[in-house]
């Protein structure tokens, strides 16, 4: 009798394999691939809509075989799909597709990221004026910043339920913030100074460094309250906090 580990290795290899399986074992392969397709489709609804169901399912099966699920929690499945699509020959003409997938993964992660706090103004006010330049404001846990040579936010927005799929822009680079307002995940295209500020905060820049940045300084007084009211800026890292 084979050891359990060996039986399980063989069976799992069969499930992810492509050679024909004996009748009843094939039920499991079909179920496994169908579950993984569904999980991938749940994380990447816009990619699915852009390429169509048949194309997506084929790509999903190839992805499963190249990147088998590594967790018992299916919400973690699909992280490498953007990288996979970038090398997936049948999708090579859709140059924007991998970046749309990157955006969708950020959206999926934002959905169950830790909740944002409200900025603690009392704590902020208590910091002595002479130390304020060293304050490092932090972004909410759901925040993600993405940059693409393609208009990924426009494409994403146009392919939300109820939209007809026609993006406002069909070419040009976009810089995007993914964040959560309450429980709703938002995708927002950023202007240059917005990108500069949020990028600097994400890298752990101090207020003094930000105020000295000519790309940010002219809009800083408008931006800080704006991002704070959206809880995109939601925390204070002190002078001792390591850059994130």
């Amino acid at each position, binding site marked *: *009798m*084979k*050891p*359990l*580990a060996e*039986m*399980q*290795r063989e*069976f*799992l290899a069969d*499930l*992810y394999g492509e050679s024909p399986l004996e009748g*009843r*074992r094939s*039920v*499991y392969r079909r*179920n*496994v691939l169908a*579950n*993984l397709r569904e*999980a991938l489709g749940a994380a990447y609804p816009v990619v699915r809509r852009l390429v169509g169901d048949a194309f997506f399912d084929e790509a999903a099966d190839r992805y499963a075989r190249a990147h*088998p*699920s*590594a*967790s*018992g*929690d*299916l*919400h973690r*499945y699909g992280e490498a799909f953007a990288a996979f699509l970038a090398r997936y020959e049948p999708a090579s003409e859709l140059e924007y597709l991998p970046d749309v997938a990157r955006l969708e993964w950020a959206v999926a992660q*934002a*959905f*169950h*990221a*830790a*909740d944002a706090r409200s900025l603690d103004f009392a704590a902020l006010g208590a910091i002595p004026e002479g130390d304020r330049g060293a304050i490092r404001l932090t972004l909410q*846990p*759901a925040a993600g910043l993405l940059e693409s040579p393609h208009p990924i936010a426009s494409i994403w927005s146009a392919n939300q339920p109820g939209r007809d799929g026609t993006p406002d822009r069909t070419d040009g680079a976009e810089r995007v913030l993914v964040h*959560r307002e309450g*429980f709703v995940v938002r995708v927002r295209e950023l202007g240059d100074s917005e990108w500069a500020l949020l990028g600097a905060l994400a890298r752990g820049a101090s207020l003094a460094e930000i105020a000295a940045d000519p790309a940010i300084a002219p809009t800083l007084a408008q931006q800080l309250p704006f991002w704070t009211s959206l809880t995109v800026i939601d925390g204070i890292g002190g002078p001792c906090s390591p850059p994130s």
Partner: protein
Amino acid sequence: MPPRAGIGLRAPHYAEAWERHPPLPLVEVHSENFFGEGGQPLAWLERFASRYSLSLHGVGLSLGSADALDERHLERLESLVRRFEPALVSEHLSWSAIDARHANDLLPLPFTREALDTVVASIGRVQDRLRRRILVENVSTYFAFSAASLEEWEFVAEAVRRSGCGLLLDVNNIWVNARNHGYDPRAWLGAVDPASIEEIHLAGFESEEELLVDTHGAPVADEVWTLFREVIARIGPRPTVIEWDTRLPALGVLLEEARKADEVLA
């Protein structure tokens, strides 16, 4: 928790279930749907936990893997259990992963002594970590390993007895396996200790040629209702959950199934 019928609660039903406020003894959710650090799923669970007894039903721990349990998975489950202190915590007598590769499916175990030792050790590890008793559920299977040295009901009864866990008896899965593997479903009734059965599952199967497949995508079948009545007549009423996962119908359909189960449990 009264031995009455509750439902498996899925995301598309949250808002309606909250609004309608049906009188249920418990609601059951899949643990892994709440493994995130925040956001809407956990907020819903907080609301439902404030109103109902909660059952956390896991699908991804892979108790039957020949290699070690995924400690990160167990850690996430533990933090969920600490946060919600649910009335029931359950997993499946199956496996889904080896060498850190997952099938994310409830795969059959060979009913061997080695597999039995493996699940008993895993259940012990989980109960130690969670510092509480868990329930394990018998699963539907579509083929049986020829290496089996025990009958399925012996395997399950032994796993429960040796690990000191409770049994979540899935009556539909018994029926499905009895048909798929050609045995008498009543063989189970004499084999498992009635006192160990702390919860019952009911769900619908679908036929694929010769095979019954546990899709959780149909009403509970007449034959399964009959078997459920026999089980309850023999062991007495138990908390029972109606499960429905694929092609989820209106919430009212689940509540009606729960009402039918309540007639048997009353």
